[in-house]
C-alpha cells in the first residue's frame, strides 16, 4: 500500500529565506536513508505564501526533482494542520516527518528513527531537538528530550517535529483543524489516549529555531489552546489512574527498549 521509506513533509508559509536550510537537510536525510536501504522524498507544501516562496520552490524542484524533491502548492491558505493533512494525503512513503520550514534535520539520525518505527510498529517517534536562535552560535536549550510521561497531560514538552506512521495518523483523522496553535500537543494526546505507541529515541533529531515572530510566541492563544486541551483530555485529572500504552517508551535500534 505505502512504499517503504520516509516522506519529509515541509509545510511552508512565508519562510522563503529559511526554506533552503530545511530542504538541504531533508535531501541529506534522504541520502542517509538510501545508504541504509531505505528511500524517501522531500515534499514541500506551500500554504499560499506571499513572499516569493513558490518561485524559489519551483526552481529548487526543477534542480532536485530526481533527488526526491516535490512541491505541492495549495490553492487556499488553510493553516498548519490543513497543510500537514495535505502532506499525509499526498505522501508516497509509509513514514512521514513533519519538518517546519524554519527548522532543520540532523540528517544522519533520520534512519535511526525510521528503524525504530519499523522495528516496533509504533505510531510515532521523536528525538531530542536542540534549540537555537538565528543569532546564537550554539544550542542553548532542548525540547522533546524525554519519553512521553503523564506530565504531557499538563503541558507539552514534545514538538511535532517527529516521524509518524502515516497510516496510523490517518486512521485517527490526522491533525485537528480546530486548533490554530498547540495542534501538535493535541495530536500527541490524541495518539496516546487512543492506544497508540509513541517512542522517544535518544538521539539529536534536529534543530529547532526560535524566532520572535513564530506562531508559538502568541501567549493569549496558547492559554486558550491549553484550556481546550485540558477540557478534552484531562478535565478530571483522572488520567493518571488510567493505564496508557505509550507511557515512558524509550527505544534505540542498537539497544531495543530501555
Amino acid at each position, binding site marked *: 500500500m505505502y512504499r517503504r521509506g520516509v516522506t519529509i513533509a515541509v509545510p511552508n508559509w512565508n519562510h522563503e529565506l529559511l526554506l533552503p536550510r530545511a530542504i538541504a537537510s531533508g535531501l541529506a536525510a534522504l541520502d542517509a536513508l538510501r545508504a541504509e536501504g531505505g528511500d524517501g522524498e522531500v515534499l514541500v507544501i506551500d500554504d499560499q505564501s506571499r513572499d516569493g516562496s513558490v518561485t524559489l520552490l519551483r526552481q529548487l524542484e526543477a534542480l532536485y526533482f530526481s533527488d526526491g524533491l516535490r512541491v505541492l502548492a495549495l490553492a487556499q491558505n488553510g493553516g498548519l494542520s490543513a497543510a500537514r493533512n495535505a502532506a499525509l494525503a499526498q505522501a508516497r512513503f509509509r513514514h512521514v516527518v513533519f519538518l517546519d520550514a524554519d527548522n532543520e534535520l540532523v540528517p544522519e539520525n533520520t534512519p535511526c528513527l525510521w528503524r525504530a518505527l519499523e522495528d516496533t510498529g509504533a505510531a510515532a517517534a521523536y528525538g531530542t531537538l*536542540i534549540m537555537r536562535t538565528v543569532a546564537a552560535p550554539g544550542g*542553548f536549550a532542548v525540547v522533546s528530550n524525554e519519553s512521553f510521561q503523564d506530565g504531557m497531560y499538563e503541558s507539552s514538552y514534545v514538538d511535532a517535529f517527529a516521524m509518524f506512521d502515516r497510516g496510523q495518523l490517518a486512521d485517527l483523522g490526522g491533525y485537528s483543524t480546530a486548533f490554530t496553535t498547540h495542534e501538535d500537543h493535541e495530536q500527541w494526546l490524541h495518539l496516546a489516549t487512543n492506544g497508540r505507541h509513541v517512542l522517544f529515541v535518544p538521539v539529536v533529531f534536529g534543530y529547532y529555531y526560535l524566532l520572535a515572530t513564530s506562531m508559538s510566541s502568541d501567549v493569549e492563544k496558547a492559554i486558550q489552546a491549553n484550556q481546550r486541551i485540558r477540557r478534552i483530555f484531562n478535565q478530571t485529572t483522572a488520567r493518571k489512574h488510567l493505564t496508557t500504552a505509550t507511557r515512558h517508551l524509550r527505544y534505540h535500534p542498537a*539497544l531495543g527498549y530501555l
Partner: protein
Amino acid sequence: MDNPAPSRRRAGRKALVLIPGAVNYFYNLCGRRLAETLRELSFDVDLCTLADRPAGRYDWCVLSNISEVLYSYGDNDAGFERLRELKKSCKVMTSTSIDSVVTPWYQTIRGYCRTAEIDTILDFSLHDQRELLAEDARATYHYLPAGLTTSELRGLDDEAGLDDGRTIPWAFVGHHTPDRTALVDYLVRHVDPRGFVYIPRLAPYQETDSPHLNERQFDAVLRRTRYQIWSSHHYAFYMESERFRMSLLAGGVPVKVLCKPLPPKQAAPFSYLMVEEAELAERLDSFDFRAVRRRFRDDFRRVKALRLGLAEFLAAVSLLDRREVRAIIGERWAKARAA
C-alpha cells in the same frame, strides 16, 4: 536484607552497610561493593536500609551515604534518632561520599555527620580532594581510592565479545543544563551526529518510571558505546569515579570534558581522558579506540584496589590488624611479579 551464610569468620567481626534502597542506585551500588569487599576481609556483613536494619552489635557501620540514607528513611528527625541508637551498638560509624567536596551535597553530608556525631567521611574518589577543603573540614575527610573490587578486577580479564554490537560512537547522559546542551551541539556538529543523547530535566531519581536511566539501562547503553562523554554540572575540578568505573566495566572509554584546564599540580590518573571542549574533536579524532581502551584498562588496574584501600582505613581505626594489611600488600606484589 542481604546476609548470606558466612563461609569463614574470624573473631566475629561484624559490619553493617546501610544503603538508601530506592532513591539512588549509585549509593546502593557503592554499598554492595563495600559489602563484597568487607566479606573478603572476613567481616560478617548485613546490607540493608536504615528502616530494615536488624538489632545487634557491629564493629563498623557505614552509611552509603548519610544524606541518601536519611532521605529514603523519609523523616530526618526520626532517622537521626535511629542513627543515635545505632551508634551506641557500633564501635565505629562512617559515611561515604561520591561527590565533589565543593558542592552543596558534600556540605550536607558534613552537616548531617556533625548532627549524628560521625567523625569520618570516606570519599570514594580518583583523586584526593583534601586541598579543596577548608582547614576545619579536613579532620573528618578520608580519601579512599575508588579502586576495583576483586570480582571486578577478575572480570577485566575476560575480553571475549567486548566489541560485539558496539555501534554507538559516543553517549552523553546527564540532566540538562544550558552548558551541556551547547556541548552536545558541539559533539553533533564536530564529532559524530549519531551519538546517544539523553539529557532529561533534573528530577528525583527512581528505579522505574522516572526520566533517569537506572543502573541496568545505563550499563546496556555503555556496552554498545565507544566513548562515554560528560561534563560536570558545577565548575570545580572533579573526577566522577562511578562514570570512569562503569565505562571500564562496560568495555568503553570515558572522556570527561573540562570547563577549564586541569589544575597544574593536580595529581589525577587518566589525564589523557580529560579534555577541554575546544580540543575535544581533535583529541577524539586522534584516539585509536582499542589502543586508548587498552591503556585505560591497564591504568585502572594500577589504581589501589578497594580491598587494600579499605583494609588500610579499617586498620587506621583499629578494626583490622596491620598484619592483615601487610599480607594483602604482599599478595599484590607476588601477583605483580608473577605477571
